[in-house]
């Protein structure tokens, strides 16, 4: 029988460890958003597990008073997969960064998304390596000057959402690192979603890549530069709520409502549930406005369901109930 879940507050999820990120880092915002979101999720504290890799973001589990493992570089999705397969009742969260997930852990990242286990992945994207003190990452921009690219980065970047959806991600959301309320809402949605959910947080690194997302995330420009999509709502943005997206041929186009005969009805309505990811990919790639919110949320069969169904079927048809049945089955013979 399910026991009632105790009503928690954010304090129940804070560990006794001193938080050691740099002052002003967006990681604090993510931590606090998570601690505030968890009491709203209806999960028991002892059922929550945070698994991380290596990097600034990966210190996260130490600060959560839940079960947690600080793993090795890039491998958190694989560790988390083992946890979830061993006990599907757990709420399992992967904490990773752009280097951890898409460089050293690229293989695990794409495969975990493909399989669709019921896991939640939070990707802290700051377009830089922080813990190793400032080298370019797989999301750093071409030309970006870093410790390991003093004359400018020559390696074109991944767009995490594009890579994720290309890897069959069923749930992908993106959010600025300075909008805790929306972030917490998305964490709650990620937990509700059955399947692997990926949330990319555009996280400012105050030391090595300060201001990398300011052009989109700064409070003064946010409403004009960001389109925060919501299910079944028209894709409208701007301080005056007068800008919107329409399809022009095979391209998205920004239009102004009331100009050139454009009415609110002409604006595209967001459907994250659509199986075909074409429009979701276009939203991910759009540079103006930057699309945030849950861009894709396609309900699909999870890996656990597939495995459970298979196991149930095999069990029904099996003549073995314990190991000895197997040992003594088939071609045995007696020596007297």
């Amino acid at each position, binding site marked *: 029988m399910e026991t009632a879940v105790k009503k928690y507050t954010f304090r129940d999820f804070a*560990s006794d*460890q001193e938080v050691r990120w740099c002052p002003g880092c967006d990681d604090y915002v993510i931590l606090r958003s998570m601690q505030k979101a968890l009491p709203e999720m209806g999960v*028991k*504290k*002892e*059922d*929550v*597990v945070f*698994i991380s890799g290596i990097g600034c973001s990966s210190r996260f*589990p*130490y600060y*959560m*008073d*839940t*079960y*947690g*493992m*600080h*793993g*090795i570089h890039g*491998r958190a999705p*694989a*560790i*988390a*997969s*083992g*946890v*979830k*397969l*061993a*006990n599907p*009742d*757990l709420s399992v969260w992967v904490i990773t960064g752009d280097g951890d997930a898409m460089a050293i852990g690229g*293989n*695990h990242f794409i*495969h975990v998304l493909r399989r669709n286990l019921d896991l939640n992945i939070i990707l802290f994207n700051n377009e830089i390596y922080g813990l190793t003190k400032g080298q370019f990452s797989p999301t750093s921009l071409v030309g970006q000057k870093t410790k390991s690219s003093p004359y400018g980065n020559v390696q074109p970047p991944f767009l995490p959402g594009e890579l994720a959806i290309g890897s069959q991600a069923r749930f992908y959301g993106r959010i600025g690192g300075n909008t805790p309320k929306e972030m917490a809402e998305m964490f709650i949605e990620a937990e509700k979603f059955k399947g692997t959910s990926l949330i990319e947080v555009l996280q400012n690194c105050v030391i090595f890549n300060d201001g990398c997302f300011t052009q989109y995330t700064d409070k003064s420009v946010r409403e004009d530069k960001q389109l925060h999509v919501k299910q079944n709502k028209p894709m409208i943005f701007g301080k005056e709520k007068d800008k919107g997206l329409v399809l022009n041929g095979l391209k998205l186009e920004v239009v102004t409502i009331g100009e050139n005969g454009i009415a609110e009805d002409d604006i595209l309505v967001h459907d994250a549930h659509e199986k075909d990811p074409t429009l979701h990919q276009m939203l991910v790639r759009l540079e103006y406005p930057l699309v945030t919110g849950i861009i894709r949320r396609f309900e699909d069969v999870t890996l656990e369901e597939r*495995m459970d169904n*298979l*196991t149930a079927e*095999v*069990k029904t048809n*099996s003549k*073995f*109930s*314990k*190991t*000895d049945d*197997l*040992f*003594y089955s*088939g*071609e*045995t*013979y*007696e*020596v*007297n």
Partner: protein
Amino acid sequence: MVSTIKNPKHEVLEAVIIRFVGDSGDGMQLTGTQFSDTSAMFGNDIATFPNYPSEIRAPQGSLYGVSGFQVHIGSVEISTPGDNVDLLVAMNPAGLKTNLHSVKPGHTIIVDTDAFTKKNLEKAQYESNPLEDDSLNNYRVIEVAMTSLTKEALKDVEGLDNKGITRSKNMFALGMVYWMYDRSTDYTIDFFKKKFKSKPHIIEANTKVLKAGHNYANTIELIPSAYSISPAKMEPGTYRIIMGNTATAWGFLAAAEKSGLELFLGSYPITPATDILHELVKHKHFGVKAFQAEDEIAGITSTIGASFAGDLAITTTSGPGLALKGEALGLAMMVELPIVVVNVQRGGPSTGLPTKTEQSDLLQAMYGRNGESPVIVVAASTPANCYNFAYEASKLALEHMTPVILLTDGYIANGSAPWKIQSVDEMPKIKNNRVFEYHDNWNPYDRDEDTLARNWAIPGTPGLEHRIGGLEKDKVTGNVSYVPENHEYMTKIRAEKIKRVQNYIPDVETEFADEGDLLVVGWGGTYGSLHTAVKQMNGEGFKNIGFAHFNYINPLPKNTEKVLRKFRKIVVCELNNGQFAKILKINFNGLDLLQFNKIQGLPFGNTELIEKFQQLVK
């Protein structure tokens, strides 16, 4: 047919070694398996070893496409598949050419003359037909037009195409060999009935050809008449023939059932370990969670995750895979979680010789990680005891909260032998270190006083929420600690924990002599070869040679030094360049160790061992 064959004779043999060779597609593995299973049912002790090319479908008739299966059967104890053979069945020239050197002079070769065409002789790089020149004068050659005889036997069977017909010729050969060694065809006919249940014409065809071969051997007077090999004296009980890799998989099934835990396998396919994955994926009915991961690293890291969450978690691999798993193995050691890593060793380094056997991953298993990172290392030594050591590895991991590396090798993993079934009830109890609720002053790194194993608090347990990770931990709380003295303390306690495993493992035993002139030392998969050689010498009057074989490598059994120092000379025999000898030297001062090493991707041969030992006791 040549006329060099001597008169038929009746002879009772103690043991016989037979090798079936042909093209990859000739069904030699099936032929060999049928012969060995039938012999086992008859009561012989057996050992088998398959030898096949790494190419999946090598070009027909080519030298490198030869597939073979060797069977050693006896009325006496059989510990190895043997080296040189009494009977070679060669289905084509390439098979003859690549295996002739293994036939004992004066012994028998059966060939399918229909396969000795100009084209096949060219492919096998024969300049002249060996059946027509004098090159086989030292052997008793039985020439049989097997393909034609098979076609003739099947001319009235409907529903078979030409390819299907010629593919049955291996059963003709098998029928002949059954007759030669006085074996019944019943077991194989039953096998056809089960295997081809829905294809009656295939059952009919195979049965006809098998019987045709049997009758042919009976009819023609050129074949020396039946040898017989009496049943072996074996411990009474229920037996089955088991391959090493299957035995490994079953040992884990037994350990999971006994410990009351679910079994998790995280694995990535690699030769020659993949058969363990193949076996375990079948057993979903026991709740086995077999997860084929995206790579070797995900194989072990998913295993660590499953162990954190409370499963009996294992991963399987071979040499290069163990190298990839090194960092994660360090994590498992650091977070002190129980996992078992099986390394079915193959020829190395790098990609090396994937289908060949070697013992060259021992030092990698011991030391192949960054930092001070001791783990338990155990090694199985026969196909059948892979069961016991998979079980033992699981037990040690769970009771001592540590990764355990189980070493087997391609030779015992693919070899098969009779296994006296060991019911799960007979197996020793497995404890674990689970904690189920919070008590005052509970900490994740609380240790058992005797074993030093930390406690195992799994997610889902209220009140025991905690964090672990690869950073050095405080000795009590498990929180991150950079305190210098703490790091030294933790390094030492992790080493001490492994050392104390000595208190829980059996002594190493010496066989044949407890003291004397020469101690033969081996470890892992060479048991059969070494045991056979020393036993043979003992029988020939060398009563001063002892044999000590190691299954526990790290830690070594407590009495190791005592055993070693009782002999004037010690020779450490390994299929590597002296890795176990190095370990013994590190542990015990002033030991004068001789070495006998072979690094050819092959097991030790009986003759080479005996020559070496004789030379050492001269």
